[in-house]
C-alpha cells in the first residue's frame, strides 16, 4: 500500500477528487440557482426531470455534451479553443490549497493565500482572450468591461486581504483556520478587539468576490439584456458549458476563501468537534447568499460599479488597513 500513500499519487488522487467536486458543484449549483430563482420569483422552477427536478443537471449536461463545438469563421481558432481551458484550470488549481478540514487538503503550502490570488488573476486574462478571439463586437465590449471591473475590484480585495494578513501574520490557510479555534467570536469576522472594522472588511471582501466572479449585480461579462451573452456569445456546446463550470468553480473558490479567512473554516462555532461538516455548512450558506443576492438586486450601471469601487470601497479598505496596523502597533 506504500504506492498509494506516496506523495505524488496522493496529490494526483486529490486533484481528481477536486475535479469531481467542481463538476458536481457546477451541475447542482445550476439547479440550486434555478430553484432559488424560482422561489424568489414565486414559481416552481425546474420540477419535471426526476423528483423535484433533481435529474435536471443530468439532462442539461447530456445536452451540452452532445452538441457540436462550432468554431465560427474569422475567429482566432487556437485562442478560441484554449480560452475555456484557461478559465477553468486556475480555479481548479486554487482549490488544491483550500483546507476542507484539518487533514483534507490536497497540498498545504505556506503561501496558500498568495497562490489563490495569483492563479485567480489568470481568470481575467482568459476571459479577455476569449472575448478577443471571438471576433464579435458584443464579446469585445464585454471583455473590455470585465477587465476594467476586475482591475477595479482587485484593489480593495487585496487591501482587505492585507488587513487580514496583518492580523493573522501567515499566508498558510490551514494555520489561519487553526488560529480561529474556540467559540464563534474567535473567528476573524468577529475579532473586533483586533480591528473594530472587521465585519466591514468581510462585507467588502464579499462584494469584491461577487465582482471578481462576475456575478449579478456585477455580471458585466454576460449582461444578457444588453450584450447577447457577452464573451460567451460565440461559444456552443461544452465550450459554453466549461465557462459556466468555471464561473461556479470560482464561486465555490471565493466562498471557500471567505469561509477560511473570516468564518473559521473547519472550526465549529462552539469549540467542539471541528470537521469538514462545518466547512461545508459555512461554504454553502455563503453560496446561498450569493444566489440570493443575484435574484434580489438588479444589475448595476457600469459607472456606478466603478464609482462604488474607486470612491467607496478603496478608501474604506485603505482606512481599515491603516487602522489595523495602528492597533497592532499600539496594543
Amino acid at each position, binding site marked *: 500500500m506504500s*504506492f498509494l500513500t*506516496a506523495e*505524488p*499519487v496522493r496529490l494526483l488522487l486529490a486533484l481528481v477528487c477536486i475535479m469531481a467536486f467542481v463538476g458536481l458543484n457546477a451541475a447542482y449549483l445550476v439547479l440550486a440557482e434555478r430553484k432559488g430563482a424560482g422561489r424568489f420569483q414565486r414559481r416552481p422552477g425546474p420540477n419535471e426531470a426526476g423528483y423535484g427536478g433533481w435529474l435536471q443537471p443530468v439532462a442539461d449536461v447530456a445536452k451540452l455534451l452532445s452538441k457540436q463545438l462550432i468554431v465560427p469563421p474569422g475567429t*482566432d481558432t487556437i*485562442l478560441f479553443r484554449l480560452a475555456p481551458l484557461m478559465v477553468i484550470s486556475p480555479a481548479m488549481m486554487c482549490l488544491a490549497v483550500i483546507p476542507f478540514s484539518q487533514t483534507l487538503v490536497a497540498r498545504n*503550502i*505556506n*503561501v496558500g493565500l*498568495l*497562490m489563490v*490570488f*495569483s*492563479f*485567480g*488573476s*489568470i481568470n*481575467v*486574462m482568459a476571459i*479577455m*482572450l476569449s472575448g*478577443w478571439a471571438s471576433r464579435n463586437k458584443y464579446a*469585445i465590449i464585454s*471583455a*473590455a468591461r470585465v*477587465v*476594467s471591473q476586475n*482591475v477595479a475590484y*482587485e484593489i480593495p480585495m487585496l487591501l482587505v486581504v492585507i488587513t487580514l*494578513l496583518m492580523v493573522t*501574520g*501567515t*499566508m498558510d490557510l490551514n494555520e489561519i483556520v487553526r488560529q480561529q479555534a474556540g467559540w464563534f467570536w474567535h473567528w476573524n469576522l468577529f475579532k473586533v478587539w483586533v480591528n473594530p472594522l472587521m465585519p466591514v472588511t468581510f462585507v467588502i471582501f464579499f462584494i469584491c468576490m461577487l465582482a471578481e466572479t462576475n456575478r449579478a449585480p456585477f455580471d458585466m461579462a454576460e449582461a444578457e439584456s444588453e450584450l447577447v451573452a457577452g464573451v460567451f456569445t460565440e461559444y456552443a456546446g461544452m465550450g459554453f458549458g466549461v465557462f459556466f463550470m468555471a464561473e461556479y468553480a470560482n464561486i465555490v473558490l471565493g466562498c471557500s476563501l471567505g469561509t477560511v479567512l473570516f468564518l473559521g473554516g473547519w472550526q465549529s462555532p462552539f469549540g467542539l468537534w471541528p470537521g469538514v461538516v462545518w466547512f461545508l455548512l459555512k461554504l454553502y450558506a455563503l453560496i446561498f447568499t450569493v444566489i440570493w443576492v443575484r435574484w434580489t438586486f438588479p444589475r448595476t450601471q457600469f459607472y456606478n460599479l466603478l464609482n462604488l469601487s474607486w470612491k467607496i470601497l478603496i478608501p474604506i479598505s485603505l482606512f481599515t488597513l491603516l487602522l489595523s496596523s495602528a492597533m497592532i502597533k499600539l496594543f
Partner: protein
Amino acid sequence: MIPGSDYLVTGIFGLIVATTVGGALLAVLSTRIIRSVTGLAMCCVGLAGLYYFLNSPFLALMEILIYVGAVCVTIIFGVMLSEPDEPEPQEKRSREALWGGVALLVSAAIFWGVARLGLQGRWPAPAAPVGDGSVQAIGISLLTTYSLPFELISLVLLVAILGALTIAHGGRGKE
C-alpha cells in the same frame, strides 16, 4: 518514494523550460500582437515554474500575480482599445534585413557572454535558503538587508505614477 519519480521531476522541469522558451519564441515571432502577449504570459508562467524549482514559491507566485495578472492584462487592454489587430502586409526592405542581422549578432553575443559567465564564473558557494519563506521572514529581509532596493523600487513606481499623470494631464478631447 515511488520508482521513477526522478524522471517525473525531470519531465516537469523539461515542460517548464519548454513553456518558457516556447512562450518567448511565440512572443517574438508572432505577427499578431495579442498572440505575442499570450506568448509573454506563457513565458512568465514558465519563469514562475523555474522560480519554484529554485525553492522560492513566494517569488514564483508573485511573478504570476504581477506579470500575468497585471502586466499582460494591461497590455492586452491597451491594445484592444487602440490598435486594429490585423497587421498590414508590408514588403521587406533590405535595410530591415540588415538591422535584423545586426540585432541577431548582438543578442547572440550577449547570450554567449551570459551563458559563459553563468557556467564558468567563480560563483561563491551555493546560497543557503534565506529564512523559511514565510511572510515575516520576507518582510524582515525587505526592511533590513534589502531596504535600499525596496526604496528604489518605490521611487520607480513614483516616477511611473508621475508619468501617467503627465500623460493624462491633457484630459479627454484635447488631443
